[in-house]
């Protein structure tokens, strides 16, 4: 299954606004994307509750995985999103 590992760039970690934008993007992708924190269990990347529950702080690595057509392209897009400081633009 295609997978990517990336460090979370947002200063507040994967909380609040960054978690909101990321899960929305994962839901919009139409694929079943999962996200795992470090060596932890993967969870549904489209669920804001599960993603926030991971409690990923700034700088920690997460692993995204997805299956299906376009999986590589979608994972690349999601990785770009996580590698951006989403607390920045407001």
């Amino acid at each position: 299954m295609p997978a990517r590992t990336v460090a979370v760039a947002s200063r507040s970690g994967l909380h609040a606004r960054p978690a909101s934008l990321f899960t929305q993007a994962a839901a919009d992708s139409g694929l079943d994307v999962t996200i795992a924190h470090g060596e932890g269990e993967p969870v549904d990347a489209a669920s804001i509750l599960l993603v926030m529950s991971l409690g990923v702080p700034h700088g920690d690595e997460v692993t995204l995985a997805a299956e299906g057509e376009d999986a590589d392209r979608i994972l690349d897009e999601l990785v770009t999103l996580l590698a951006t400081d989403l607390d920045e633009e407001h």
Partner: protein
Amino acid sequence: MLTGAGVGRGAGIGPVVRVSPAPVAPTDERAPADREATAARATAAFDDVAAALRAQADGAEGAAVAVLQATAQMAQDRALRTKVLARIADGEPPVAALDAVVKTFVDMFTAAGGMLLERVTDLRSVRDRVAAHLLGVPVPGVPQLTGPAVVVAEDLAPADTAALDLRHVVAIVTEQGGTTSHTAIIAGQRSIPCVVRVTGALDLEPGTVVAVDAASGTVEVDPGPEVAEAFAERARLAAQLAEDTSAGATADGVPVGLLANIGTVADAERAAGTAVEGVGLFRTEVLFLERTTAPTREEQAAVYAEVLRSLGGRKVVVRTLDAGADKPLAFATQPDEENPALGVRGYRLVRTAPELLETQLAALADAQRETGIEPWVMAPMISTPDEARDFATSARAHGLTTVGVMVEVPAAALRAEAILAEVDFVSMGTNDLAQYVMASDRLRGELSDLISMWQPAVLDLVAATARAGQQAGKPAGVCGESAGDPVMAVVLVGLGVTSLSMSSGSVPAVRFAVSRHTQEQARAVAAAALGARSATDARAAAVAALAPEVAALLGA
């Protein structure tokens, strides 16, 4: 009389309006006869609640928009929905299923702590809305307000506050929450009197008239007419003073910088909303306290940039780490100091942990580059011109342009001229200056008369420092809380102090007092204080020399 923690200094009187309690699952809630129909009802409830929250977000403004959008996203959450539907499919009644699933998330969030803990309120509010929908009862939260009301709740979710018609809210009282909770922040921004953590608040009967005083943190049931009169008088004075947003100046137009003291980004945002020229003291140690390791350069730079941006180019004076003595740090404080107040603290940490200052200056330079806004930077606890020179050299090497030092050690005040030859400005920390001039621990209550800022010896050193500033043509400010006392503010201006930094709530009264005296009159007030032989006499002499209208208004 109920008591809690007050937010701000406001006060208000009105009838209690209770926020509707959350709907509970009926004890006889039946297992669904038609599981598919029940599942469809639950799906519709989630959809409707999410849609209502999104609509509310569209109609909201400012910070409430993002909060409501995130809450709507929770209502739409796939995992939440799938798990609830799975339980219904197993024959569980819908509200019980919802509660069980929400509880697992609440437990997870609570265990994770920190920022997630704050989201528990949002999650509970989603739960309450969906449950109300399933049970066919009114949406919980705040009823439509038609007149003045004191809103009483266990705590208010952001969605509740967004739904409040704040024009009618006289005061907010909560049984839970803290002074930094969402409720408190909104109340502070909107200047709504608010008292949190009031035990017994939920026992107040709707309709009961209560007097809420944030200044004293009290809620009085059925207050007498004298309470209303006192509140009205306070409000009238505060409103009158707050109306004036002009730049600080004496009656004859000599500018006096009126600035705010801050410790956090939230403080900076609050100060930015008030009529201040900027920040005269940004206490960076708040970033370092209660940590086991120093914050990284990146982490510091992000906070500094945020503060600079919040003030939008207004002056910001950043004080480098002032740790030690009463503000110990796990990673920097020297163990076994016999006299910590006289030990390795403030700028002196450069002798034992030089990397702390280097990292901080680098982070400040990063923030300056990122925002294009140049902060002023100053070091605390400077004793000699050589220390001032070394600090200035380090700061300028990092590209920081406006460099100053604090004057709080008597030696620095006595040799202010030589110190000012090395730096661009000085700022007097009057609490520590008084402590060192009077050789009195500022934390010892039984010595509080000795450590008074009104001690003539302390005023002498302030006068010497201000004079050196005038001779050098460089700013000499005061950033201790004494600057927030309107009477002392007039004395300081009379001594030649060029800026006053205080908590932003003190600014209106200080602006008023300063603006009613010419420079010459302020000098006369200062001379009266300096001519006294004790602290008590000095204050009395200053008050007697004040412009009568100021003395009357301040009740001095």
